């Protein structure tokens, strides 16, 4: 059966949801754009199932098509799929994390009755099912990790290829104390996402739970020992896992148990599914189905478009004699400088020309100094500061000192005499002479009286003063 819904309606309802109940379902489990910059290629992992939830195998490349969009509305068809790999999960290996609910209700029977017989408890069935799944992993490329949760999240092993060890760790899951028996489902899914950090390729969390999220802080009436007053939301667990490219497969375990109302969305939005496991055999088969579904994914590699967008929507479609379906997710496609302007105008030339002109003006800065009259310039003072930095030598006598009446006054310098040094001008030979009443240095040599040359550096009580007489220098 094929439903011919208008495309816009389909897109409106299907932004992130894997295949709807057509004859075929398609889910876009992962978009790998890590090679986009180098190869311009994007890899998408899709799984196709029929109405019974069974993986559809043997599809040809021609059954698939890819389209990209910058806004999720207008799609551009990709002309051809560059590479097609069936059974991609088996080829590249899958990294699993098995996350087992260890809350109080998991110690009831499958039909929710209290029991003291460990063999009848849900947890026993769950452990058996996990052993079955681990044993069924025949691909040496697969890796599996193990964690469980109740009031807290407990990691037993990060993903490893040592499956015997994983099976052995199941015995470490013990019945929780009453205070540890709450169901922190969302928190645990959020924390579990981190276990895949740094792992590339296909990643899946299989969460086995028998009830709804039952946060400690809400129901125990006191802060959580680790999370405090924080209550995790379903969105957080979705976000955390989408960030890492993880797919969540959820198994609602047990007869008569109320599934968490958001667990289905969590699974769907991360590209996974939710299953109901009614008994041990069914449970074992569900795990097997997930394994086969992941392993049987199709890997489609295509050359991405360059349409500017912060995030790029990818629509993967499948069409065969059994029906058709499509799914849309997005990947991060923002560029460093961001989106382009909607239109270019000639006004853009203005800053370009203006910058060039101003650069030209800078190059025209007066590159050489004009000659001026003789002067004294204070470069530096160890103590105090000059009233003026530059003093032209326009009279026959220029006094340097601490007195306000001096021609060049340096205030706040107690070591300076009122009239520490005097510059005398001899109009006959047009020479300047410095005469010290206190200690002075010229070019770091102590002097009492000295005829000055342009560029001489006079130290007057710690003030460094340059004598400048360009006309003399030009002689």
């Amino acid at each position, binding site marked *: 059966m094929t439903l011919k819904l208008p495309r816009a309606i389909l897109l409106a309802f299907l932004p992130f949801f894997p295949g709807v109940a057509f004859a075929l379902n398609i889910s876009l489990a992962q978009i790998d754009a890590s090679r986009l910059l*180098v190869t311009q290629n994007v890899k998408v992992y899709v799984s196709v199932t029929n109405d019974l939830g069974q993986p559809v195998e043997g599809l040809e490349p021609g059954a698939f098509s890819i389209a990209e969009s910058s806004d999720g509305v207008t799609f551009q068809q990709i002309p051809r799929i560059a590479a097609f790999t069936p059974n991609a999960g088996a080829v590249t290996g899958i990294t699993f994390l098995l996350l087992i609910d260890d809350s109080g209700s998991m110690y009831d029977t499958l039909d929710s009755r209290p029991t003291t017989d460990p063999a009848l408890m849900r947890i026993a069935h769950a452990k058996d099912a996990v052993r079955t799944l681990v044993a069924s992993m025949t691909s040496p490329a697969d890796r599996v990790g193990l964690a469980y949760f109740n009031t807290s999240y407990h990691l037993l092993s990060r993903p490893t290829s040592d499956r015997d060890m994983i099976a052995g760790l199941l015995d470490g899951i013990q019945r929780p104390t009453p205070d540890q028996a709450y169901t922190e489902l969302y928190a645990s899914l959020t924390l579990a996402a981190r276990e895949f950090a740094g792992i590339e390729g296909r990643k899946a969390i299989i969460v086995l739970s028998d009830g709804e999220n039952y946060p400690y802080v809400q129901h125990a009436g006191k802060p959580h020992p680790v999370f405090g007053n924080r209550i995790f939301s379903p969105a957080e667990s979705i*976000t955390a896992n*989408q960030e890492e490219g993880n797919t969540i497969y959820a198994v609602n375990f047990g007869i008569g148990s109320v599934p968490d109302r958001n667990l289905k969305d969590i699974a769907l939005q991360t590209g996974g599914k939710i299953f109901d496991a009614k008994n041990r055999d069914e449970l074992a088969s569900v795990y097997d189905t997930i394994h086969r579904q992941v392993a049987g994914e199709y890997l489609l590699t295509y050359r991405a478009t360059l349409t500017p967008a912060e995030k790029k929507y990818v629509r993967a479609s499948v069409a065969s004699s059994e029906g058709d379906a499509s799914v849309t997710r997005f990947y991060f496609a923002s*560029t*460093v400088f961001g989106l382009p302007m909607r239109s270019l105008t000639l006004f853009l030339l203005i800053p*370009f020309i203006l910058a060039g002109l101003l650069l030209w003006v800078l190059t025209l800065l007066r590159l050489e100094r004009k000659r001026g009259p003789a002067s004294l310039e204070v470069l530096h003072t160890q103590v105090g500061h000059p009233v003026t930095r530059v003093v032209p030598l326009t009279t026959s006598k220029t006094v340097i000192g601490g007195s306000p009446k001096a021609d060049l006054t340096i205030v706040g310098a107690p070591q300076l005499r009122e009239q520490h040094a005097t510059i005398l001008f001899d109009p006959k030979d047009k020479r300047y002479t410095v005469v010290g009443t206190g200690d002075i240095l010229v070019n770091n040599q102590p002097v009492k009286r000295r005829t000055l040359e342009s560029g*001489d*550096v006079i130290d007057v009580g710690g003030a*460094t003063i340059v004598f400048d007489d360009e006309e003399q220098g030009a002689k």
Partner: protein
Amino acid sequence: MTAFARRLILLALGVLAGICAWPAAELILFLQTGFPSYLVFSALLGAVTGALMGAFFGSAEGITSRVKSRIPRGMLLGALVGCGGGGLGLLAGQAALWLIGTLVMQSYGNFQRVVLPLSHAIGWAVLGVFVGAGEGVRAGSLKKIGIGILGGLTGGLLGGLVLEYSRLLFPRMGISRLIGFAILGLAIGGFYGLIERGMSFGILRILTGALKGKEFLLNQRRMRLGRSPRNEIALPSYEDLADRQAQVRIHKGEVVLVNLEPRLPMQVNEQKVLESRLKLGDVIRMGSVRIFYKYE
């Protein structure tokens, strides 16, 4: 030109570099769809913006040393180095942006307000590092490379953040990217000016002649002094100097001045010497030029 004026010139050149690079970047961004791949697009975008900014910074030495003939050569070399640095920088920045963006893109509420601006700013910073280092590569100075990296990193981060947040706050403002570019250039120029000073071994201030008042930062291990415009301390208008009259060497934190052409005697504090370990406050005389060695 004093060290302060040199800083102002570098700041002005930085802003102008950003202003000039902006329209070129807008043009390439507008043509994004027509590129064959993100690789070519990013490399060209980075190369063009880097080349323009590099050309502006390359002109700085010619302008501040008052040797006009250095300006076109500096600009050309700056553009070439900036082209390479910008191309590599934007590729690296793009890779960093995608790495971070992909990891955290689904943080719903925070995506627009935190993730996108921050990841963009990191991309800008990586670009800034390469563009900033360009001037040091051009000058063949490891110190300048370090200075440029710091300036580029700071400017890129600031420019990127200002760009992103001004875009968020004023969505209709079409010049957000211009502001980002100007800040990037300003910070690189500012760092060249500020940190260059802090990482130098003092200043030689010219006391006489046409370049009176000009200050040369001692920020390279070896600096040549003489009439040739190729010298780091170029004194072309002092005709009694040889093309390469002297050399300043930095050795174990000490500044040593060596007279390479003893036909023209060198005096330090009025004592004739061939070589001298300079102390702050020393007065040097070589023919018609007098130089004061100072720190500030």
